């Protein structure tokens, strides 16, 4: 240690506020909200809650508290808002999924059919798995800078995962979109994992190339355009997104990837011209596919005039809109509405179910929670000390933001409906797991960003990973 040689005595030690108690408090609030909501569903619908409910509540609480303890143990300086907000959203999702289960069971009983298996326990299992993977990220990744070494590996695997559903045996088409992989009875959406891998790839790639991408060479109509040879990457991203749209018929994923790439390009180079270029390419792609593919055209027509398709392709969105109308400002109350009338109410349309039973007021609170989550992610991006981390944190937050915008916008008929899951709320394992991994990565990064330098160096084994120096220069 050079410092001791110079005779320097450590006199002052700074401690950053970790605010872990705030985190625990907020988690407890979220858990209480979940219990209150479930009780309300039980009382309103007359469905007995029984022991199963309390076991579920204890399991959820235990998972959240263990997650909190792991954070305290390994990444004590991590952002204190990410974990409670994500947990609360997951819990609200669980409550709504349980509520829809109750509706399904009761309608089956009324018609003397065998009640369907409830989805909420499957979702609970997925939440447990997601929490385990969150731990894995916190314990294994520890230093996000290590991910930069796997830039191209991540890119390769990301693309592979994207095309996986198209493979003959394992790929499967559900409701016209080929985005599932089915192995035996187990199925997942590889697009969700691809989202994370491609964000890592974009971040690593843009760190290396952003200097050349920021060069403005030709001036055209007063707008500085990038050099022709630098246009390659944006075209590749555009073609890949179009391919996803054409072959997998998945509007949402296609939009998500292209939007993500363009936004990250803009953040990396700080050149607005990329946004303009992205918008132009988007417009060309959107218009082209509108005229070329019937499935895109149908979506747009439903968006413009859903009520003339109310009995066929537009049934889902029309029912969703009726749900919002029934909910009004303050909602019908949990267990009191008819959210089960909307097809896929617990996946794509969980927002309309929440809108019906919690009303506009409740929906706004949920949108605000997403806002907090994304703000904390972007704040992490500002605080992180290395360019790769900045891009990665920004990219991960933007994926989440885009996804929330695309699905809530679609359900509320702001934009044409595209099938994407609502992060944390929707029923479905792949999405829940992927979003919890994102939270894990963001928390690891924010821990490293907010950790005081002194601690970082004095406890090298416990807290930091010494990255071996690659001799470049």
């Amino acid at each position, binding site marked *: 240690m*050079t*410092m001791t040689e*110079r005779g*320097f005595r*450590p*006199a*002052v*030690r*700074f*401690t*950053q*506020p970790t605010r872990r108690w705030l985190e625990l408090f*907020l988690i407890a*609030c*979220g858990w*209480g*909200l979940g219990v*209150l*909501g479930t*009780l*309300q569903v039980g*009382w*309103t619908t007359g469905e007995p809650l029984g022991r199963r409910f309390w076991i579920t509540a204890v399991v959820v609480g235990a998972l959240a508290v263990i997650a909190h303890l792991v954070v305290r143990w390994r990444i004590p300086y991590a952002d*204190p*808002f990410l974990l*409670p907000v994500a947990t*609360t959203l997951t819990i609200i999702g669980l409550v709504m999924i349980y509520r829809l289960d109750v509706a399904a069971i009761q309608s089956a009983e009324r018609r003397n059919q065998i009640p369907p298996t409830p989805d909420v326990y499957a979702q609970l299992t997925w939440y447990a798995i997601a929490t385990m993977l969150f731990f894995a990220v916190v314990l294994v990744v520890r230093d996000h800078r290590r991910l930069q070494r796997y830039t191209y590996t991540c890119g390769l695997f990301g693309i592979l995962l994207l095309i996986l559903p198209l493979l003959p045996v394992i790929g499967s088409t559900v409701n016209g979109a080929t985005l599932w992989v089915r192995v035996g009875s187990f199925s997942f959406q590889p697009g969700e994992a691809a989202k994370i891998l491609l964000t890592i790839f974009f971040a690593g790639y843009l760190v290396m190339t952003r*200097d050349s991408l920021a060069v403005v060479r030709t001036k055209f109509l007063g707008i500085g355009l990038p050099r022709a040879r630098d246009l390659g990457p944006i075209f590749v991203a555009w073609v890949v997104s179009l391919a996803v749209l054409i072959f997998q018929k998945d509007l949402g994923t296609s939009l998500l990837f292209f939007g993500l790439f363009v936004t990250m390009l803009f953040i990396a180079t700080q050149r607005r011209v990329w946004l303009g270029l992205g918008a132009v390419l988007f417009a060309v792609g959107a218009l082209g596919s509108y005229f070329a593919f019937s499935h895109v055209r149908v979506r747009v027509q439903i968006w413009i005039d859903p009520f003339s398709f109310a009995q066929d392709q537009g049934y889902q969105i029309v029912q969703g809109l009726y749900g919002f109308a029934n909910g009004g400002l*303050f909602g*019908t*109350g*949990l267990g*009191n509405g008819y959210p089960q009338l909307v097809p896929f109410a617990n996946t794509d349309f969980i927002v309309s179910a929440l809108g019906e039973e*919690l*009303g506009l*007021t*409740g929906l706004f*609170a*949920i949108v*605000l*929670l997403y806002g*907090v989550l994304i703000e904390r992610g972007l*704040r992490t991006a*500002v*605080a992180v*000390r*290395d*360019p790769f981390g900045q891009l990665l944190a920004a990219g991960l937050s933007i994926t989440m933001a885009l996804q929330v915008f695309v699905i809530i916008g679609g359900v509320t008929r702001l934009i044409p409906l595209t099938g994407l899951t609502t992060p944390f709320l929707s029923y479905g394992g792949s999405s829940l797991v992927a979003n919890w991994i994102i939270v894990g990565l963001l928390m690891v990064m924010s821990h490293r960003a*907010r950790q*005081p*330098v*002194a*601690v*970082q*160096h*004095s406890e090298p084994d416990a807290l930091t990973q010494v*990255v071996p*120096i*690659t001799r470049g*220069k």
Partner: protein
Amino acid sequence: MSELTLTLLRLAFLVGLWLFVLFTVLALRRDLRAPREARPARLDLSGPEPERVRQPKPVKAPKQPKKSKNTVGTALLVEEGPLAGTVILLGTEQVTIGRAPDSTLIADDDYVSSRHARIYPSEGVWMVEDLGSTNGTWLDRSRITSPAVLNPGVPVRIGRTVVKLQA
């Protein structure tokens, strides 16, 4: 369950949801007041010196460095360059700046050397030293050739990056 109880429950859930949002936003506000997350919460005096430096307060212009035994300056603020806006809390250890991945501040910049400069505490002040970089380290307007005292508010230019010590 009576209608009234259910209505109350319904409102209770909404109120609870909004209280959660409110708590979060109130807690977030603290970040707005100390925007850079840079203010140390408390000062643990584990060393022998009993006196403590009053923390942040607006910069009182460069002070005489020998005033106190404790090191002047609490944080390094990156003012310009690719990492502008970043804050590094200073403790008792040196801060290294360079392109090497193990630097404290990794400047991704063609004009920065692998191990460009370091900022370290010495006898109550922070010193800045150039580690034999190609393009030099500039303290205010002059290129430094030997370790120099870094006073709060004086810009240090390293490649495209400019850092300042916060008092």
